């Protein structure tokens, strides 16, 4: 045990004193920060300006009404998130329960109608002002996705619209011009034209298409049922209210989004930390083999003590990595608004509860040990880094598979795919970290946990055997079939 600790300590020191260690550690938060900040610096999704030449009549107004509705909806969503993080909910509930209801269900058509009737964002903020908590930052309304620009006069009657609009598109007067021909909505005329200099924003195109389609439908209904003219029945949309019946409750609004991303983040961190540290472990073993340091170690300790020490050392390095990243996160939080901090912590609490935190730590440690054992075994079988790369290629393809399945799993965390793949031993820690916030069935939770522990113990044992068998040989690395055969021999006790 003492020798295991000494080797672990040496491994830890060896890795953390490398020149590249802190650089690579700090690169990850920097990378994340860039992913988050760059869109903010660039203003998020680009704002698109457009103009409409409506030769049929009535459709321009329909688009502008829908645009107004959409902008109001986006403001209401943002305001709801702002209030959940910055207002004293209890006091607000007592003082203005209607406003609270409206903000709790921002997607509801009724809420949007009430919000607009109230006077929009400025009126709502005035009503909310007495209930904002100290330190609450100012509300920043979202930037409108699409902005309407009136059409130049000479476009209105231009015969060759494409030629007439080109100078305006080239001069960036607007990003897109929409031509609604005079026969639009009559007979078979249902084709509007959208002119852009090069590529077309898909969201803007979808917005225009949907809005014009709705307008066409309404016109048809008005013709068929004139009595509906003026009624808002034609513009009414259905609401779907979400009710969660489990005991776990459900986060709402931005918390919901964060609660989805936190497990993905944890699983990705597991993968990145594992691959980062396990690669260094592999490289270290290959170097020790080539420098014969491994012989000296083997004259001092058993193969099992060496492999255990190395794996413990890697776990320690990984924990330091996590601690540093946590410190960076805290530093970023200190710079962020109180509302963002509260949201992040609320989301983390929703994932890492008292009940799930030990399991998350277990999955993380087991995942690290599983990846570390595999890389260590590969390192002990390789005679050079080139050999190691040849073995590492297929192993990496297998180990990276979970990453391509994240979106599928997160769409249905307790679905069939997730339930099946969680029982694949190498992947269990990764997928259960993804699923844990979705409260998987107890049998799956505890069954896969037991499987993870058993897999980890087996792999550590197997790595010890592979290490002892291969670390001093200079024979060619075994084939996959050879490895499988040897694994069977080990399990049946027929190997030397």
């Amino acid at each position, binding site marked *: 045990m003492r*020798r295991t600790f*000494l*080797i672990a300590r*040496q491994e830890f020191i*060896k890795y953390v*004193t*490398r020149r590249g260690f802190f650089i690579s550690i700090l690169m990850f938060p920097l990378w994340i920060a860039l992913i988050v900040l760059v869109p903010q610096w660039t203003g998020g999704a680009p704002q698109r300006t457009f103009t409409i030449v409506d030769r049929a009549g009535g459709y321009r107004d329909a688009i502008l009404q829908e645009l107004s509705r959409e902008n109001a909806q986006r403001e209401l969503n943002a305001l709801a998130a702002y209030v959940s993080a910055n207002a004293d909910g209890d006091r607000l509930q007592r003082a203005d329960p209607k406003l609270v209801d409206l903000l709790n269900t921002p997607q509801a058509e009724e809420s949007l109608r009430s919000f607009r009737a109230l006077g929009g964002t400025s009126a709502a903020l005035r009503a909310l002002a007495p209930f904002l908590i100290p330190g609450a930052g100012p509300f920043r309304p979202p930037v409108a996705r699409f902005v309407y620009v009136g059409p130049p006069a000479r476009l209105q009657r231009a015969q060759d619209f494409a030629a007439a609009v080109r100078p305006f598109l080239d001069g960036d007067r607007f990003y897109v011009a929409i031509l609604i021909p005079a026969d639009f909505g009559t007979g078979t005329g249902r084709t509007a034209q959208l002119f852009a200099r090069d590529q077309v924003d898909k969201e803007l195109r979808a917005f225009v298409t949907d809005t014009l389609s709705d307008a066409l439908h309404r016109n048809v209904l008005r013709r068929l049922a004139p009595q509906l003219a003026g009624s808002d029945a034609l513009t009414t949309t259905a609401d779907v209210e979400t009710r969660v019946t489990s005991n776990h409750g459900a986060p709402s609004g931005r918390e919901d989004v964060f609660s989805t991303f936190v497990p993905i983040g944890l699983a990705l961190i597991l993968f990145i930390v594992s691959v980062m540290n396990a690669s260094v472990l592999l490289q270290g073993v290959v170097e*020790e083999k080539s*420098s*014969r*340091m*491994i*012989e*000296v*170690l*083997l*004259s*001092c*300790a*058993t193969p099992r003590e060496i492999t255990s020490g190395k794996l413990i050392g890697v776990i320690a390095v990984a924990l330091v990595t996590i601690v540093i990243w946590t410190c960076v996160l805290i530093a970023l939080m200190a710079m962020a608004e109180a509302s963002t901090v509260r949201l992040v912590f609320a989301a983390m609490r929703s994932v890492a509860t008292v009940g799930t935190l030990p399991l998350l730590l277990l999955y993380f440690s087991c995942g690290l040990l599983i990846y570390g054992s595999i890389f260590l075994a590969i390192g002990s079988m390789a005679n050079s880094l080139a050999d190691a790369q040849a073995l590492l290629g297929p192993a990496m393809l297998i180990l990276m598979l979970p990453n391509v399945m994240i979106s599928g799993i997160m769409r249905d965390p307790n679905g069939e795919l997730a339930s099946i793949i969680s029982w694949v031993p190498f992947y269990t820690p990764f997928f259960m970290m993804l699923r844990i916030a979705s409260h998987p069935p107890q049998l799956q939770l505890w069954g896969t946990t037991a499987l993870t522990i058993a897999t980890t113990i087996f792999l550590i044992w197997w790595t010890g055997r592979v290490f002892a068998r291969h670390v*001093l*040989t200079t*024979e060619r690395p075994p084939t996959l079939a050879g490895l499988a055969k040897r694994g069977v021999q080990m399990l049946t006790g027929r190997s*030397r």
Partner: protein
Amino acid sequence: MTDTVLELTKVTKRFGDFTAVDHLSFTLTKGKILGFLGPNGAGKTTTLRMMLGILPPDEGTISVLGRDITKVRERIGYLPEERGLYRRMRADAAIAYIATLKGMKRADALACARKLLLNFGLGEFARVRIEGLSKGMAQKVQLLAAVVHDPEFVILDEPFSGLDPVNQSEMEQFVRNLAGEGKTIIFSTHTMQQAERLCDGIVVIAKGRKLFDGTLDGARALFPRRARVGADADLSFLRNVPGVVAAAAPSNGQANWTLDMAEGADGRAVLAACFEKGVPLTHFDLAPPSLHDIFVSLVETAA
């Protein structure tokens, strides 16, 4: 208490179909220096690794310090053939690390490492990384790492390879000092002169099999003494002189005739025969066979 520090009994090691060590048996007593000799691929390193418990023998037993190797790791020092140190570690820390793995406390190990480096003329390099040391210095550091924990039994695999004559001489003296302290030493080497100067006994192996096990005098007794005679004439008549077993004409750059002498024969009969023939001699010497000659003869015989 037994004086036997190392005992190999019919030890065999195979790698697939290849037998690297074949029923090898020998013993080493306390305080002795044993030269473990053999050509490349003879099985020396495999045998040393089995002695260290790095490789298990397929057959036979190995007893070190009267016990199984796994029980006495901390009482053994080992210098591998190729230098095994972490390149980025400082010299004192590298020595201390091995010492701690051998059971020393870190503070003691570090203090001992610095003292040894000082005694070995490397005091000023104690805080230098291994990658910054010359090959000779790194070799010394490696040797110090093998003995810093005061082992009773020291295994040295090619300890002199790659060293210049001055460093070789220093290293020889160091090995002698270790033996003087009562440590038992086995070392493998290709350099016969060093083995001749240092060893109390030798074991010669080839193709995994033992060819000789005994003292240098015992080895010499197995082979005839040789006389080397120089003259500007044909000396083939010496083959008929009593006491001369064989005579070989000068060849391969050798300027002199080489005569294998029978046991107990001296050179007087040879000198008398030359005098009678009126052949003036330019060279004459009579010496026991060198270890080099013995080694070559043994290995050639085995081949």
